[in-house]
C-alpha cells in the first residue's frame, strides 16, 4: 500500500507560565492509503495533540510545533501557509470530534452547514450542493433526510449529530479521516452504530482513518494498526492483532490487564498500574513510564530507542518483557501476568472458541 501520511519526529510544545510542556515528544508513524490506524492512550498522553498538530488546529501560541515534519502526499503540512492549509482541512483531510454539539453551529440549519463545505471545497452550485447534502445524510443513515436537512442541531440526538458530523467530514471524499474519540460521548448501542458506519464508509470510499481513543475495545474491531501513546511518546506500535496477542511494552501490558472484559470471569483482581501519569511540566528523566514500571532497570534512566521486536512491531523499552526471568523479577514488584481469558459470551460462535 502506498504511503499517504508520514509523521517524522513530531514535537509539539505548549509554552505556559510555569514552563514548556512537551505534549508530543518526537513521534514518528505512517498511515498508508486505505489503512485504519488507532492511537490509544490515556488523558494527557498526547493523542489529541498529535491529531491537532497534523491539521495545524492548535492555537499558536501557546502551542508550537518545534520540530519534525508531517508529510501528506509528499507535501510537508508544517511548512504550508494558512490559505494552503485551509484547502487541505475539510478537503483532503477531515476531522470528527468527540462532542458533536459543540462542533456544529447551533444557529445554522444542518443543510447550510453541509452546503458551506461543499461550495467551499468542491465549488458546487447551491442546488447541486443541496442534492449532494441530502444523499450524504442518507449515506450516514439519517432517516427522512429531506426534512432533517432543514433542522437545527438541537433537534438531533447525540448519535444523529455525530452522523451529521461524519456526513460533513466525508462530503469532499477526503483521503484521510481523523476521528478523535468519536463515540466517547455516546451510549454503547449508538457507539456500535457509529463504528459500523465508519467501517462501512472506509470500505466504500477507500478513505484512510486515524481513530483516536482511550478504549482498547474500540480500536480492536476497527483498526489495522495501533500506536500506544504515553506522556507524549509512542510506547509501542504494531499491527492490531499483534498488540493484543503479543504486547511488548510494560505500559501496554498494564493497560490490557486494567480493562475489565465482558468475556472474562468475575472476581479476579484487575491488574493495576500504580501511581498516575507524569506531570509533563516535570517529566521523569529517561523513559516516562519508569516511575510506574514493575520492569524498571537502571538503564531506564535514558530514553529507550524504538526497538524492533517483530514484523512491523516496535516497542520503546529496554526490557524484554517476554523473558521469564524478567517476569519473575517484575512479579516481585507486583506485576500480574496476563492470563488468557477463558470466559464465554453470548454471540460468539462456539466453533471459534478454542
Amino acid at each position, binding site marked *: 500500500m502506498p504511503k499517504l501520511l508520514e509523521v517524522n519526529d513530531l514535537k509539539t510544545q505548549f509554552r505556559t507560565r510555569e514552563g514548556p510542556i512537551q505534549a508530543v515528544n518526537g513521534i514518528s508513524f505512517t498511515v498508508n492509503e486505505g489503512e485504519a490506524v488507532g492511537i490509544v492512550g490515556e488523558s494527557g498522553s498526547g493523542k489529541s495533540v498529535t491529531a491537532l498538530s497534523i491539521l495545524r488546529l492548535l492555537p499558536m501560541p501557546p502551542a508550537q510545533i518545534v520540530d519534525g515534519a508531517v508529510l501528506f502526499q509528499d507535501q510537508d503540512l508544517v511548512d504550508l501557509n494558512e490559505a494552503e492549509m485551509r484547502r487541505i482541512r475539510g478537503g483532503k483531510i477531515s476531522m470528527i470530534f468527540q462532542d458533536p454539539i459543540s462542533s456544529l453551529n447551533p444557529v445554522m440549519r444542518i443543510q447550510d452547514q453541509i452546503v458551506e463545505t461543499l461550495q467551499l471545497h468542491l465549488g458546487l452550485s447551491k442546488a447541486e450542493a443541496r442534492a449532494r447534502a441530502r444523499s450524504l445524510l442518507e449515506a450516514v443513515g439519517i432517516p427522512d433526510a429531506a426534512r432533517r436537512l432543514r433542522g437545527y442541531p438541537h433537534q438531533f440526538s447525540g448519535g444523529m449529530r455525530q452522523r451529521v458530523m461524519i456526513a460533513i467530514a466525508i462530503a469532499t471524499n477526503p483521503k484521510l479521516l481523523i476521528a478523535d474519540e468519536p463515540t466517547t460521548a455516546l*451510549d454503547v448501542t449508538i457507539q456500535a452504530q457509529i463504528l459500523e458506519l465508519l467501517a462501512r464508509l472506509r470500505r466504500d470510499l477507500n478513505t484512510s482513518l486515524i481513530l483516536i481513543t482511550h478504549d482498547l475495545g474500540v480500536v480492536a474491531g476497527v483498526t489495522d494498526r495501533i500506536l500506544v501513546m504515553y506522556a507524549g511518546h509512542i510506547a509501542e506500535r504494531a499491527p492490531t492483532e499483534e498488540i*493484543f496477542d503479543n504486547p511488548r511494552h510494560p505500559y501496554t501490558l498494564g493497560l490490557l490487564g*486494567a480493562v475489565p472484559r465482558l468475556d472474562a470471569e*468475575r472476581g479476579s483482581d484487575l491488574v493495576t*498500574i500504580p501511581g*498516575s501519569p507524569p506531570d509533563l511540566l516535570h517529566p521523569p528523566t529517561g523513559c516516562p513510564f519508569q516511575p510506574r514500571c514493575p520492569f524498571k532497570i537502571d538503564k531506564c534512566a535514558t530514553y529507550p530507542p524504538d526497538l524492533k521486536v517483530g514484523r512491523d512491531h516496535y516497542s520503546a523499552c529496554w526490557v524484554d518483557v517476554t523473558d521469564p526471568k524478567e517476569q519473575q523479577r517484575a512479579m516481585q514488584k507486583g506485576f500480574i501476568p496476563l492470563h488468557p481469558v477463558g470466559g464465554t459470551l453470548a454471540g460468539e460462535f462456539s466453533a471459534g472458541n478454542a
Partner: protein
Amino acid sequence: MTAQEIAFKPQVNSDVLMRIEDLVMHFPIMQGVVFQHKVGAVHAVDGVSLAIPRGQTVGLVGESGSGKSTIGRTLVRLYKPTSGHLYLENDDLAELEGNQLRAVRRRVQMVFQDPFASLDPRLTVGALIAEPMVIHNIGMRNEIRQRTEDLLRTVGLNPNFIDRYPHEFSGGQRQRIAIARAISIEPQFIIADEPVSALDVSIRAQILNLMQRLQRSMGLTYLFISHDLSVVRHVAQRTAVMYLGKLMEVADGPEVYVNPLHPYTAALLSAVPIADPKTEKRRSRILLGGDLPSPINIPSGCRFHTRCPLAQQICREVEPPLEDKTANGHFAACHFSDKVDALVKKGSISGMGSL
C-alpha cells in the same frame, strides 16, 4: 401483590438488605406562571422491584436516560418517590421523614461519578471526610481527626494530605477521597453511581480493586450503577438491566452475559467492543435502529418494541411482565425470550442507509 413483588421476595437463605418494591418516580412537567398546572410527566422510573442481598454487589446497567441514576438518588432520598417502597431491612425509606430519615441515612451512603463536582472545593480533605461524622454526631474532635487519618490510609492516600484541598488531587485521588467520605460513618450500603466512568483506564482498575477490598473487609453492600457492562460484570453478583424506567432483565452471576433472555440485553452486549481483535471478528452484532424514545411519551405495550428486532403485534399492545423464565431466578420482561438465543447467533443490522 404484583407478580414482580412475588418474584423478588428473598429466596431461601439469601439475606436481603435492601428491597425496592414497585418504585415509581415521575417528575412533573409544569406550565404557566400564576396558575401552574401539570402538563405531563417524565417517567424516569416506572415501577421497579429489585432485591439487593447483604454483602453483595448488584449492578444496575442502562443507557443514559434509562432511569438508573434516578433509582440511586431515590434510594438516598434525594428525591421523594412518587410511589413504591424502599425497605432497608425493616425501615421504609420512602415513608420516613426528619430525624427518622436522618437516622436511616447514616446506613446508606453515595459515591458520585464526577469527583471534580462532588467535593466542595472550599473544604480541606480532612473536613470533607469528617463532614458525615460531624453531621451524625459521631466521635469527639480529636477522635475524628485520628479516624480521618486512618481513613486516608485505608483508601491508599497519605494521611499527611489531610489539610490539602481537592484541587490539589488527580481524578483518581479525588474518587478515593469521596470513597473515604462515604465509608467514614461505616454505612451498610453504598450506592455508587458511575464511580469509575470519569477515570482513566489505569486509574479505574485501582478504584475498582479498592472498592472490592473495602467490601470484603467491611462487609459492604453495593448498588453499582453503570453504563459499562464490562465493569458491571467484573464487580456484580447480580445484574439488572434497565430500559426507559423499567427493568428488562435480572439474573445472578454471569447468566445475563452468557445467556441473555431479553433482546435489549443481547443488543447491549453485542454493542460493547471487546479488547481482542480475534473475538471482535467472530462476534455477531445486533445493531439497534434509532434512539431511546422520550420518557415523556412511553411507547405502548413493551416499551422496547420501537427498537426491537423481534417485535410483533402483541409487543405493541401488551406490556410483558418481568418473570422468571428459567425457574432458577433469571427474570426477563419479554414475550419472545425463547427467540433471543437465535437472534444472538444470527445477529441483525437495521436502519442503515447506503452510499
